[in-house]
């Protein structure tokens, strides 16, 4: 196996590409009790339109998430219960561009890993079992509909983007999922759950070679064809809608501000843009920026305020949000601060501090096996290695962050999503 050392952050990663095309990454952690395995496919909620074996498929919104639910069904019952019976805590999630299955366990790690590899690679559903899931997922969708944090975010996506499928709800709607059949699920599994389109990331008290041996034993021996995805036409920099509002049973208005960016192709450029984006946010409105202190003092934001850079194939954006009595005032204040930075630049001392702070935060986050494994899976699909950030980070300049602020924090790229209290009160 290939061994990669990241001495600065005290990490070591083993890598092997198997004969069937699966990429395996292992982070040995002999001092931990638990092991964590993350098995993921480069396929998520936004991959609705794809071509396999020369044929185009248009699938309903929510199908990747539906498939995730149904993958746990096995010929002998349910893998979730099988893993739980071994003391593992299993779960899965569907993102815009990734579907991941994982478990954490302190006992019987190898046996659990076999179960994970087996159920994710073996589709088993009947029309009856697919129909039955409508009830559970329907209730999950209802739960999100009552969740203001989720609503304010998904409404922002639909305001930022006009056609890109990232604007769709990952879980779909009660209506869209009603069109899902066993055949749809089989087609999507065939298109995207081939080992060559997947990664396996493992951290814990494990032997890297042993992980590869188990993957070879359980998974198909040779790679199959991988579907070609279509996200429609490239988005313009201008947002689809500048403002979107909804009323819900909440106590104070909640908001998400979004700034539509220019997506870059995969590889290190993309990771670099992410780091520049994160530093730009820290300088513009982060916890130790002058603007944050001012907005907090004025009562325009509170401790719920958070922010981040996000990117998926074909899109990249900055967002910031939380609760506010006056979300419009926050939007204006951010625009003014961006203009000020445009004139005066980012303060040199502040920049040095922010870099030190963000670096420490990123290293601390590596305590989490989930951060390591999910981070590596996503970075790999995007064409790089997660732990490369430590080397890239130091080279990032203030001018790069200033340029990103100047380009992205402008009116035509800004969208504001607000969830207001129903009828003004709860």
């Amino acid at each position, binding site marked *: 196996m290939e061994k990669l050392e990241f001495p600065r952050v005290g990490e070591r990663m083993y890598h092997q590409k198997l004969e069937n095309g699966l990429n395996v990454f292992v982070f040995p952690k002999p001092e931990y009790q638990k092991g964590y395995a993350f098995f993921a496919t480069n396929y998520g909620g936004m991959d609705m339109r794809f071509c396999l074996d020369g044929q185009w498929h248009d699938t309903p919104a929510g199908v990747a998430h539906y498939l995730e639910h149904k993958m746990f069904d096995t010929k002998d019952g349910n893998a979730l219960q099988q893993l739980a019976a*071994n003391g593992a*805590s*299993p779960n899965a999630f569907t993102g815009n561009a990734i579907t991941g299955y994982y478990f954490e366990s302190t006992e019987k790690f190898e046996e659990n890993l076999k179960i994970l590899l087996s159920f994710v690679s073996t589709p088993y559903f009947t029309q009856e079992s697919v129909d039955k899931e409508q009830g*559970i997922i329907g*209730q999950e969708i209802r*739960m999100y509909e009552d969740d203001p944090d989720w609503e304010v975010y998904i409404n922002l996506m639909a305001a930022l983007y006009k056609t890109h499928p990232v604007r769709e709800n990952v879980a779909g709607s009660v209506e869209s999922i009603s069109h899902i059949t066993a055949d749809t699920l089989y087609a999507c599994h065939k298109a995207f759950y081939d080992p060559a389109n997947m990664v396996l990331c493992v951290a814990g008290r494990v032997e890297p070679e042993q992980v590869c041996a188990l993957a070879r034993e359980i998974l198909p021996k040779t790679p199959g064809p991988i579907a070609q995805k279509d996200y429609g036409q490239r988005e313009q920099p201008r947002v689809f809608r500048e403002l979107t509002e909804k009323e819900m049973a909440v106590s104070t208005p909640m908001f998400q501000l979004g700034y539509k960016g220019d997506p870059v192709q995969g590889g290190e450029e993309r990771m670099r843009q992410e780091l520049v984006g994160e530093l730009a946010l820290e300088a513009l409105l982060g916890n*130790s920026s002058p603007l944050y202190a001012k907005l907090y003092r004025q009562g325009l934001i509170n401790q719920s305020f958070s922010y981040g850079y996000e990117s998926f194939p074909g899109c990249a954006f900055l967002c910031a949000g939380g*609760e506010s009595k006056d979300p419009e005032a926050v939007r204006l204040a951010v625009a003014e601060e961006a203009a000020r930075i445009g004139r005066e630049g980012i303060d040199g001392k502040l920049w040095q501090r922010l870099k030190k702070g963000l670096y420490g935060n990123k290293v*601390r986050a590596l*305590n989490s096996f989930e951060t390591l494994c999910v981070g590596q899976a996503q970075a790999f699909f995007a064409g790089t290695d997660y732990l490369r950030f430590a080397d890239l980070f130091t080279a990032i300049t203030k001018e790069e962050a200033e340029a990103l602020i100047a380009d992205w924090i402008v009116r035509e790229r800004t969208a504001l999503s607000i969830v207001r209290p129903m009828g003004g009160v709860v």
Partner: protein
Amino acid sequence: MSQITRRELFPGVWLRAVHTEKFKSAYLSVTLLTPLAEETAGQNALIPWVLRRGTAVHPDMESLSAALDELYGGAIEPVVRKKGETQCLGFIASFLDDAYTLGGEPILESAAALLGELLLNPYTQDGAFCPDYTQGEKDNLLDRIRGQVNDKRVYAVHRLTSLMCGEEAFGVDKLGDEDHVRVVTPVSLWARYQQLLHTAAVEVYYCGSASPERVEAALRAALERLPVSGEREMPECQVRLHAETEPRVIEEAMDVTQGKLAIGLRTGGVTCWEEEYPALVMCNAVFGGTTLSKLFLNVREKLSLCYYASSMLEKMKGLMLVSSGVEFEKYKTARDEILAQLQAVRRGEIADWELEGARRTLIGGHLATLDDQGRQEEFWLGQAAAGLDTTVEELCAQFEAVTREQVAQAARKLEVDTIYFLKGKEA
């Protein structure tokens, strides 16, 4: 392997130190433990937030943030928790471990000092808290209290406990209530703060690579300003043994698309201090604590009634709380099924795979606590509030020994006290 020590820094001020080199960060917390009471809960909950605004040395958020950035993006967060009928307030801090600083400089001493400064050397005006900070954080706290309604899943369980324990200290929310927060002044808050510093039991926690001796020295220095006091006593927790004869049923309506069902049960006096406690924990796991539980497999998977149905314990108070999100029309079906599953546990209808699965999940979950600094801190604070010294490993050994009959016995002691249903407005 990690080494765990506990020592008294000052009278009534205890340090729990976990020495381990496996993490990239050092974790520190300082917590004041005080009885949960309607009159003081709001004031208490406000104090860490006002303290976090500024100190005598770093008088505002900008200078505090700058100090934290210099410590490699360290975080010090105000935190208010409830353990049984004890209100726990203080700060949780996380810093880069000394081994990973770019220049190899030590961070622990500076971090501990900043934490001590936040707790004990606040920014003041005219001998009390600064009016601006007090007002700002009062507004934020009022928002947080009102904001509890935003997450309906948490809100339903929260409503259930406040209705069910309306006459008990446990029914008081950890954040207090709006009326008591509204009347707080910088001067009254200052008086409360001084009182807390003299009477609250203090728990200090550290997890990281520094030796216990170095940690003790750093924290002794950091907490030097803490008043010497012989009055620090750990709060107690009253346990009601039985439910009302007839379960109370309470329905409320709100603009929601999904109903929330919450059921509160009394454990018949079984709490973390009783011998039957491990059996009760196993009982909760079998009934609704895992994805292998009867609630998950029957209410969700078999009948597709909901996306989630689970149960949890309040170990000091002797409560079990069931929570589920269901369609309005299916509320009665879900309730009946939940209670039917409880009956099955009471009759000992627990298959081998259910019992062993619950045991493995429970033990696996507990052991994994040792791999997470935050979860370990939470565990040890819970133990401190309960006055217990049992380790994670010892608890696991107890779970190994629980039998099917003991689980059924624990279930037979459970009594349904209150059923709460949050429904839609048009329903």
